[in-house]
């Protein structure tokens, strides 16, 4: 299958690969898997607790090129966003930006799920309610 140049770029030069301290109070970790293909994504955010702005984001992904690119792109987008802005990221934005073909849409869904899981992990650490998934794919 032919990948778009943007997917190839993120795959070859992934942004923000790495690990944040998942025990830290201001770090949210989302670890999600796609049952379709067995791919697994971990996304972490480090949040400024006073402003609720995401200071740093890291990912590690076991998956196809599209999943790696989706998570790499997600970390780029997350940095500097508020939690509310981050929650507004839609998987279709990722699909569009990376020109993912239909069979690769679930890879972007995985990234969206990972963002939500990371935010919820952070919220729970802060003593807040987790946000329920507002849509089902």
């Amino acid at each position: 299958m032919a990948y778009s140049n943007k997917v190839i770029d993120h795959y070859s030069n992934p942004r923000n690969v790495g690990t944040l301290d998942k025990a830290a109070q201001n770090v949210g970790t989302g670890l999600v898997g796609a049952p379709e293909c067995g791919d697994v994504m971990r996304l972490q955010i480090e949040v400024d607790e006073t402003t609720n702005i995401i200071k740093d984001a890291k990912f590690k992904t076991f998956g196809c090129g599209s999943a790696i690119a989706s998570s790499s792109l997600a970390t780029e987008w997350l940095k500097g966003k508020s939690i509310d802005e981050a929650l507004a990221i839609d998987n279709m934005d990722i699909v569009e930006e990376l020109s993912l073909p239909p069979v690769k849409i679930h890879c972007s869904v995985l990234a969206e799920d990972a963002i939500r899981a990371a935010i919820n992990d952070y919220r729970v650490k802060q003593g807040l309610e987790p946000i329920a998934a507002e849509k089902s794919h």
Partner: protein
Amino acid sequence: MKTPIYLDNNATTRMDPRVLEAMLPYFTEHFGNAASRNHAFGWAAEEAVDYAREQIAHLIGADAREIIFTSGATESDNLAIKGVADMYARKGDHIITVTTEHKAVLDTCRALEKQGKRVTYLEVDDDGLINLQELEAALTPQTILVTVMLANNETGVIQPMKEISALTHKAGALLFSDATQAVGKIPVNVEEYGIDLMAFSGHKMYGPKGVGALYVRRKNPRVKVTAQMDGGGHERGMRSGTLNVPGIVGLGKAAELARLEMAGEIARLRKLRDKLETELMKVEETKLNGHPEHRLPHVSNISFKHVEGEGLMMGIKDLAVSSGSACTSASLEPSYVLKAMHINDDAAHSSIRFGLGRFTTEEEIDYAIRHVKEAVGKLREMSPIWEMYQEGVDLNTVVWASH
């Protein structure tokens, strides 16, 4: 050195330029129909076909009259299995095969099952070998055919043909072998192995595509197959259709080259393959798929655990290889051959088959080693699974999204 580097020689091989040269006159100057008995055009074609038959027979220790030309191994597999099932229907209705056979064999057996024949599918062990006791137990007086491939196309695993032949013949059945991956690569002698029918194909041995052969034994015992296409009764009535003269000339030349150069090629390729394998197996958490010794000298199938197959294929884009992963095929299931060897889905998905060939150079192998090591290292660096594995974390902590 040009990239991508071709290491998919089990899928097909580049045609040897000497084969092309031999074929060319038979497209134009000597275009005759080998069945035309009345003029020089036909005689020239027939003579070329006869010569090719000799070249091919010589390679496999057969008599020229035992070679039936077909369009390739798929057709030879069909003709052998269906042809025997039809011809020997009065003797019995039972066929024995193996779960790791090529689709051309397995699907043919399935088709016969639909027509009421009985088929036993022998399983293989973790190394890909069949169990001879199981074969012996499966043989019945109604068994007419045992079909076991000589060398597997995904792992290169070589089955013990002599022993299989002895058991098969003791039970009064015939032995057919799909030897597509072996003929022209390793010594294959139908007498030594006791094979009654054998399929092989031009494009797997540096010859042209669209031409193959079926060896059909003529004595001890004399074997016959029922034709599967009606027509002019070519090839002793077993396979009708005007002969593909240029293709046959090419297959003949390919067989001759293989015979003359085999010993040197085996030694050269084994050395290169072993170098590749030794280096790649130094990478942590790798697994060699297939029996380490009973294996073709130019094939290596390795799983790289904790990296994802499709990502890996993307990472080694400078190599033309095959993967046991689903993404290289139309289905989502990983390789049924590896599965039959009890290799789990994850390891099957991250497996790569390296198939070396006549045109593979040491420089290419050195590049391949570096390229694969780099890609695996990079993907593991990026993999949460690898991190969890190294920390000894249970992978079941992953939350599976429910879309």
